[in-house]
């Protein structure tokens, strides 16, 4: 689509010399879903580097038994800040940001339903994150050195009570997440409203790309899950500032109450983070297999089933807290049931690959690794769901291995796939295939070294969150392999950063549709104009560009 035949285009043509202040103002004041998406993703990646550095420091501390590189205080802050950052300030903004950019494009809309709410949500997230990190200097009230939170990312009471967590570090943890949570809730409302009201002509619910379906389920989950978290945080603030006793066991409060509130949020949160990974894979795997997604209706149903089931499994995080037989049994069954729709997805992706013509470009490489890693993550999930086994595995390094398999092996790998896949659309330039392969192989080797060995440490009785261990436990060699893997991952990330800057300066021009793909975002220019589409598109099937490219055998004949 050239700009010449669009009268609208002429009026928004950027003047040639634009000062950096104007440019900055443009980014700060923007309500464009695409710019906000880029802002979300860029901030998420910055926090990924920060959180990754904290993890690397912890791994260096654990390289030797009895090492004293980090003091226990610093180590405990690192794992708290690392966990909190990765979930709330890396996972959430990347997931929301990618959806923010793509969702309107995929449904043929010109923006989100509420553009200004969209901008507000982003700034809430960013300032929430900055408020949280401000604890490093400000948690003692700006006098002397600050102290970051050190209560763990799920902040179990009563460790968070005034009696055990003095100063204000825990308050920064609460407030940072609370504020960022406002942003997540607004983003969820916006995505639901956009999906339900802004679809282009012909795009029925049954014709939405799977990406859009999955983000719709994720948005509902955010709405349902953030409420209890927010409530728990407000209760904790009451305890800390107003002398309430919700979680104060010394005064008759209940320590386990916090866990119910937190995990009622926390478990859906896992799906809030992993379903977008499924969403990227469900768009990328078909394109690089050159086949339509296998079993679209079942994929949608499985996503909804996962969403629903995820609301009824939270207490599997609490199997060792002393639940009764009945409660334990319920949560064992419910949790194992999640394996069924998740299994369906894996089989349907294999069904998509089967009989295709597989182009192993970088996005597909990341998706391939994702399939294997997510399979393992799912199976270790079954082991953790099996309550008696969990009584041994819970709070050990096995759990750490499991959820990093989910969140890195599942989510981060697919986010990399998504970035390599959609970067050309966002910037108009291709990421280097050669650097991408280096990134992939370094990262996959590093990931396996680090997180596969962590399973062993857990089976050998090593609890998580310990800053030191004695040599006679024989855990050292496993920890050393784990730490070595971090080096490979860090190199992979370094290559990734280089690839991004290289592409921004000298990347090959991408054209509108570099992957010969089928969804609407590839029908507009790269990068898309501010208004996305000059004319509202009209679709007849789930793959409008396939119909365009194959008029002899369009999709709508088969759906």
């Amino acid at each position, binding site marked *: 689509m050239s700009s010449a035949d669009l009268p609208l285009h002429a009026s928004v043509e950027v003047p040639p010399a634009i000062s950096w202040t104007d440019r900055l103002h443009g980014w700060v004041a923007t309500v464009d879903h695409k710019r906000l998406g880029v802002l979300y993703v860029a901030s998420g990646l910055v926090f990924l580097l920060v959180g990754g550095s904290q993890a690397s420091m912890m791994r260096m501390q654990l390289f030797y038994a009895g090492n004293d590189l980090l003091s226990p205080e610093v180590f405990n802050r690192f794992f708290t800040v690392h966990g909190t950052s990765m979930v709330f300030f890396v996972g959430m903004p990347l997931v929301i940001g990618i959806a923010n950019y793509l969702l309107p494009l995929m449904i043929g809309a010109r923006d989100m339903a509420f553009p200004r709410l969209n901008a507000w949500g982003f700034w809430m997230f960013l300032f929430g994150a900055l408020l949280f990190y401000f604890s490093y200097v400000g948690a003692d009230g700006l006098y002397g050195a600050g102290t970051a939170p050190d209560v763990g990312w799920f902040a179990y009471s009563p460790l968070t009570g005034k009696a055990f967590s003095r100063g204000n570090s825990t308050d920064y943890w609460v407030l940072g997440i609370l504020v960022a949570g406002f942003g997540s809730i607004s983003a969820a409302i916006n995505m639901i409203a956009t999906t339900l009201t802004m679809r282009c002509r012909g795009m029925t619910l049954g014709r939405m790309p799977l990406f859009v379906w999955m983000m719709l389920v994720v948005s509902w989950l955010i709405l349902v899950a953030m409420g209890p978290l927010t409530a728990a945080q407000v209760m904790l603030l009451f305890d800390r500032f107003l002398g309430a006793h919700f979680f104060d066991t010394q005064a008759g409060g209940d320590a386990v109450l916090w866990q119910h509130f937190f995990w009622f949020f926390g478990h859906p949160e896992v799906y809030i983070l992993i379903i977008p990974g499924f969403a990227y894979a469900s768009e990328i795997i078909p394109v690089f297999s050159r086949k339509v997604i296998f079993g679209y209706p079942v994929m949608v149903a499985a996503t909804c089933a996962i969403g629903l089931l995820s609301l009824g499994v939270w207490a599997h995080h609490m199997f060792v807290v002393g639940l009764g037989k009945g409660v334990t049994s319920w949560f064992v*069954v419910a949790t194992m049931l999640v394996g069924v729709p998740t299994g369906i997805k894996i089989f349907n992706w294999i069904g998509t690959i089967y009989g295709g013509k597989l182009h192993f470009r970088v996005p597909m490489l990341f998706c391939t690794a994702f399939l294997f890693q997510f399979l393992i993550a799912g199976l270790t999930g079954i082991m953790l769901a099996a309550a008696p086994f969990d009584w041994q595995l819970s709070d050990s390094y096995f759990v750490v291995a499991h959820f990093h398999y989910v969140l890195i092996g599942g989510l981060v790998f697919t986010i990399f796939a998504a970035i390599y896949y959609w970067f050309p659309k966002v910037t108009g330039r291709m990421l280097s295939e050669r650097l991408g392969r280096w990134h992939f192989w370094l990262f996959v080797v590093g990931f396996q070294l680090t997180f596969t060995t962590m399973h062993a440490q857990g089976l050998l009785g090593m609890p998580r969150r310990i800053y030191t261990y004695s040599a006679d436990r024989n855990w050292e060699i496993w920890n050393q392999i784990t730490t070595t893997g971090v080096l490979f991952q860090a190199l992979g990330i370094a290559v990734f950063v280089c690839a991004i800057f290289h592409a921004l300066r000298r990347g090959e021009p991408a054209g509108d549709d570099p992957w010969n793909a089928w969804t609407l975002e590839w029908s507009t220019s790269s990068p898309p104009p501010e208004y996305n589409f000059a004319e509202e598109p009209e679709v007849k099937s789930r793959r409008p560009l396939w119909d365009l490219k194959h008029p002899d055998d369009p999709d709508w004949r088969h759906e």
Partner: protein
Amino acid sequence: MPRLRLAESSLLFVGLAFCTRVAGALSGPAQAPISTPSIFAPVSRPAVVIDAYAWLVVAVCGVIFVLVAGLLCFALLRFRLRGDDDGREPPQVYGSNPLELAWTLIPLITVFLLSLVSIRVVGELQLETRPPDWMPVTVVGHQWWWELHYPELGITTANELHVPVSDPASPRPTFLNLQSQDVIHSFWIPQLAGKMDVVPGRQNHVWVEPARTGVYVGQCAEYCGTQHANMLLRVVVHTPEDFERWARGQQRQAVSEASVAEGRDLFLRTACVSCHTVRGTPAAGRVGPDLTHLMSRATLGAGALRNDAANLNAWIQSPDHFKPGVHMPAMGLQDAEINLVAGFLATLK
């Protein structure tokens, strides 16, 4: 558990060779003293039952992994783009109801069966009726040490749980009543039993029935503050005779030797007594570990360092050096005074 064994043997055969190899590697050389608390080297009933069950789950998951990953590998290799590709799109397959029904139902059935076995094991391990001849012990979690009471024997000690061995003919299980003084901790001796949280305001229970004598190590498994890493626990499993001997020793009051009277007086004059108890003296503090038989224990500071005269001296001088953040303060004593106090404590056998 005959039924589980049956199910296990029928399902395990596929992964058996692989599993035993991994198990061997994980549990270390069989004869060497085991200091690695591997969950696959159980010596006590709850852990033994969990071990058998765990291998069943691992075997089921292993079979699923081999099948699915194998299928995936085959698809990836078989359908990769070939050099002689004609550039045409492959046939578009939109789905298959029979296939999708199959990969819904088969996992459903697997989940159903696995759930049944799991519920059975849950029931088996959460004992409702206690066998005769059991010994109660109350475990109290503190930041960052374990307080242990034997209500029937009148013993109070810390960080080192002593229990008698159970032989199958006359089992002597120990039932632990878990309580917390401050925040949530978790009691975990991997070779004896699964972990159980120690929650303030609640009483949780766990039981052990060790079949072999020896020392089994574990530690707090729920993050509980600065020194969570140094909240270690040792379980010493004795023969019945040794256990009687140990219990009689612990029941005695502290014996004051005249040679350390000066150190004893100094100990009683300083703030040590507001936290520590030495039975047989006026020291009756309840905040820190009972020191009546301090030297019968192998470690100081809940496992932070080995317990000997030199370490005891250094520990009193600066607990924070060995366990940064520990609640026990350095008392600001002169070197000579520390020697006196340590000399007294070293006689508390």
